C-alpha cells in the first residue's frame, strides 16, 4: 500500500496553478508522473500523490520540474478562474475510480495520437525528400535532352543549308548549260548558212558541244575486262549451317560418334558362320528391315534389325526403326526401350540428328499413350514439338493427349 502524500502545497493565479510536492528523500530517477487534463498522479515508491483537479488544465502546456527534493508543477488552467480548492471535493470512491480510469484511457489515446502524428510527419518528410530528389534528376535529364535537341537542330539546319546549296548549284549548272547550248546553236546556224552542202560538218559542232558542256560521259573508260575464272576451294565443313565457335565442340563430338558407329564391330564369327556376305552388313540389313516394314511383315523386320544390331550396336537408326516395328506389333514396352536407346545414342543434340530425335520422341510418346501413361506420353510429344515446332500432326496428337488427360483427371 503506497503512502499517500498529503503535505503538498499549492498556489494559484488567474491562469496558473503551482503545486509543490515534496519528494521525501526519494531519488529523482524513481519519480513517475502521470497527468491528464483532469487528473494528476505522482508515483514515487513508496509514496503516492494523486489529485483530481478542480477544473481542467491544458496538459500539453503544463510543465513539471523535478529537483531539489521537490516536484514543482506549473499547470495552465483551461478556463481562467480562481479555484476554491485544488482537488475536487466530495468525491466518493467510485467516482474517483471512474476518473482514474477515464484519465488512463485519455492518456492512452493521447499516446496513440502522438505516435500517429509522429509517423505522419515522418512520412511527409520522406515524401518531401523523394520529391526533391526526383526534381533534381528530372532537371538533369532535361538538360541532357536539351543538349541532344540542340545538336539535332543544328545538324538539321546544316543539312537544310547544304541541300539549298546543292539545289542552287544544280540550277546554276543547268542555266549555264542552256546558255552554252544557245551559244553553240547560234554558231551552228551561222555555220550552216555559209556551208549549205556537206552533211558531215554539222556533226562536228555538235560533238564539240557535247564536250564543251562538260557532260564528259566517256572520258575513255577502259574496255570491259577479259573474262576470267578463278576456281576456289573451301575450308571443309560437314554441316550445312554456318560455322560458329561456340558450337564447334558439340559438332566435333557428334561427328566422332558417327564415325565410331560406322566402323564395323567385331563379329563373333562362329555364331554367324551361316550368314551370307551381304547379311553381315548392317546397312543392307537396315534396308531389308525397311522393306519388310513396308510390306507389313513386322516380325521379319524385327528379326532383320535384331541381326543388324548384333553386328553393330551403335547405330541409332536401327533402334529407331525397330521401335517403329514394335509399335506396330503392340510390343509397347520394347518400343519404349528401343526409342530410349535411340535417343541415348543421338546425343549430343545437333541440327543434323534433329529429325531422328523428333521421330524417337514421337514413337516413345505413342507407346506411352497406348499404355495409358498419358503424362509421360505428353512429355515426349512436347519434346518432339520443341525440336520440330512446325509439324501439324504432332500438334494435333499432343492436343488429343491433353484432352484425354483432362478428361480422366476429374474421374480419378
Amino acid at each position: 500500500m503506497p503512502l499517500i502524500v498529503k503535505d503538498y502545497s499549492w498556489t494559484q493565479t488567474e491562469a496558473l496553478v503551482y503545486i509543490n510536492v515534496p519528494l521525501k528523500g526519494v531519488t529523482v530517477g524513481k519519480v513517475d508522473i502521470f497527468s491528464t487534463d483532469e487528473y494528476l498522479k505522482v508515483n514515487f515508491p513508496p509514496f503516492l500523490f494523486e489529485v483530481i483537479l478542480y477544473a481542467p488544465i491544458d496538459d500539453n502546456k503544463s510543465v513539471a520540474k523535478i529537483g531539489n527534493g521537490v516536484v514543482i508543477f506549473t499547470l495552465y488552467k483551461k478556463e481562467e478562474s480562481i479555484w476554491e480548492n485544488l482537488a475536487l471535493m466530495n468525491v466518493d470512491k467510485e467516482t474517483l475510480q471512474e476518473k482514474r480510469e477515464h484519465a488512463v484511457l485519455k492518456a492512452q489515446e493521447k499516446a496513440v495520437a502522438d505516435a500517429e502524428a509522429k509517423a505522419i510527419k515522418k512520412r511527409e518528410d520522406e515524401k518531401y525528400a523523394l520529391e526533391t530528389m526526383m526534381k533534381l534528376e528530372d532537371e538533369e535529364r532535361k538538360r541532357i535532352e536539351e543538349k541532344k535537341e540542340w545538336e539535332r537542330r543544328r545538324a538539321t539546319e546544316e543539312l537544310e543549308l547544304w541541300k539549298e546549296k546543292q539545289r542552287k548549284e544544280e540550277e546554276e549548272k543547268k542555266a549555264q548549260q542552256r546558255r552554252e547550248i544557245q551559244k553553240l546553236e547560234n554558231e551552228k546556224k551561222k555555220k550552216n548558212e555559209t556551208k549549205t552542202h556537206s552533211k558531215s560538218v554539222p556533226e562536228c559542232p555538235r560533238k564539240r558541244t557535247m564536250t564543251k558542256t562538260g557532260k564528259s560521259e566517256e572520258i575513255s573508260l577502259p574496255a570491259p575486262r577479259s573474262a576470267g575464272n578463278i576456281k576456289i576451294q573451301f575450308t571443309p565443313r560437314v554441316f550445312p549451317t554456318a560455322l560458329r565457335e561456340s558450337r564447334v565442340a558439340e559438332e566435333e563430338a557428334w561427328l566422332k560418334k558417327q564415325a565410331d558407329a560406322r566402323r564395323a564391330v567385331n563379329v563373333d564369327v562362329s555364331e554367324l558362320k551361316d550368314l551370307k556376305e551381304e547379311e553381315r552388313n548392317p546397312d543392307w540389313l537396315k534396308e531389308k528391315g525397311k522393306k519388310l516394314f513396308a510390306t507389313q511383315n513386322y516380325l521379319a523386320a524385327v528379326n532383320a534389325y535384331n541381326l543388324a544390331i548384333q553386328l553393330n550396336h551403335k547405330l541409332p537408326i536401327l533402334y529407331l526403326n525397330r521401335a517403329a516395328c514394335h509399335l506396330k506389333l503392340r510390343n509397347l514396352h520394347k518400343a519404349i526401350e528401343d526409342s530410349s536407346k535411340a535417343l541415348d545414342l543421338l546425343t549430343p543434340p545437333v541440327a543434323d540428328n534433329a529429325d531422328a530425335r523428333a521421330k524417337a520422341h514421337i514413337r516413345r510418346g505413342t507407346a506411352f499413350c497406348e499404355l495409358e501413361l498419358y503424362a509421360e506420353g505428353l512429355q515426349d510429344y512436347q519434346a518432339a514439338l520443341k525440336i520440330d515446332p512446325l509439324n501439324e500432326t504432332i500438334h494435333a496428337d499432343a492436343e488429343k493427349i491433353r484432352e484425354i488427360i483432362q478428361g480422366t483427371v476429374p474421374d480419378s
Partner: protein
Amino acid sequence: MSTPLEKPQIISHIQKGLNYTVFDSKWIPCSAKFVCMGNFARGTGVIQIYEVQQGEVQLIKEIEKAKPFKCGTFGATSLQKRHLATGDFGGNLNIWNLEAPEIPVYSVKAHTEIVNTIDGVGGLGIGDGAPEIVTGSRDGTVKVWDPRQKDTPVANMEPIEGETKRDCWTVAFGNACNDQDRCVCAGYDNGDIKLFDLRNMSVRWETNIKNGVCCVEFDRKDINMNKLVATSLEGKFHVFDMRTQHPTKGFASVSEKAHKSTVWQARHLPQNRDIFMTAGGAGSLHLWKYEYPAQRSKKDADGIEMGVAGSASLLQNVTLSTQPIASLDWSPDKQGLCVCSAFDQTVRVLIVTKLNRV
C-alpha cells in the same frame, strides 16, 4: 582524356516505321535522299526513295517489283546518272534508273540462288578504271559484272567441280588504285575470307576466322589496300592490316569482341578512313577508331617483312532497337550523317557529332 561531352554522340535524328521488311538502305550520292530496299509481306520486292526534309523523311517514290530485293549499291554509276544496282531473291542483278524504273537499264540472271551481297566500284568519281559490280550468292559463287557487257560476268569465282558449296555472305571491292588493279574480298558462312586479284585472276590470300563472315569492307576502295574489317558471328570482328603480306602468315590482324551478338555490318566513315561503325544483332551500334602501331611492319625471324596490327578503341555505343541492324550507310556528302535499317521494320537517320575532333 576526353570528358563525356567530348566524345562523339550518336543521336537518332529521324525514325520511320515501314510496312515491309527492309534489307538494305543507301544514300543517293549528292543529295539528301536515300533508298530503302526490301520485301513486302505479299512476297514482292520494293524500293522506296525518301528525302530528309526538316525533321522528317518524306516518301518521294515507291517502286514495286516481282522479286524481293536483298541488297543494292550506287558504287558503279556515274554521279550524273545515279543508277541503283540491286540483287534480289531470285538471283537477278538489275540496274535501275530511279527516274524511269519500269524497265531496268541492265538485267541479268546472275546466280541460281539469292544474291546475298553486292558492291560496286569505278563510279561516283571515285577511283579509276572500269565500273564493275560484284555479287555474291548462296550458290557459293562470286561474279564480277561490267554494265557494258551483257549476260556474262567478267570474272567468276566458283568452287571446283564436286566441291560442296558454301554460302557467300559478303563481298567488297578494294585496291582499285589505277586502271588495272582491282581486288575482290569475299566472306563465306564457314568462316573463309578469300581475297581475289582481278588483274592476275588468282586467289591472292585466304584465311578462316572460325565464325561465319557477315561483312567485309576495305577502308577505301580507291587506294592501295590499307585496312580490311571483317565482321562475323559470335560478336567478333577483325581488322586486317593489308599493307604487308607475309608469304605464309598472310596479313596481320587485331580482333575485338563487341555487341555480344552477331556483328552484321561494318562501315567506314567516307571522310575519315580510320573511323568505322559496327552494327550488331541486338540493335546496337558501336563507333570505333583504329590506331596504327608505331611501326606498321617488322621483320620476322627469317628476315621477311610482316605486318603489325594496331588497335581498335571504342568511341561510343548506342542501342537503338531490339532487332538486328542489318544495314548501315554513311552519307558521302555530310560527315556524321548516316542511315541504318533494322529488322524491326524501321529505318533511322542518325547524326554522329564531333567526328572532326576525334
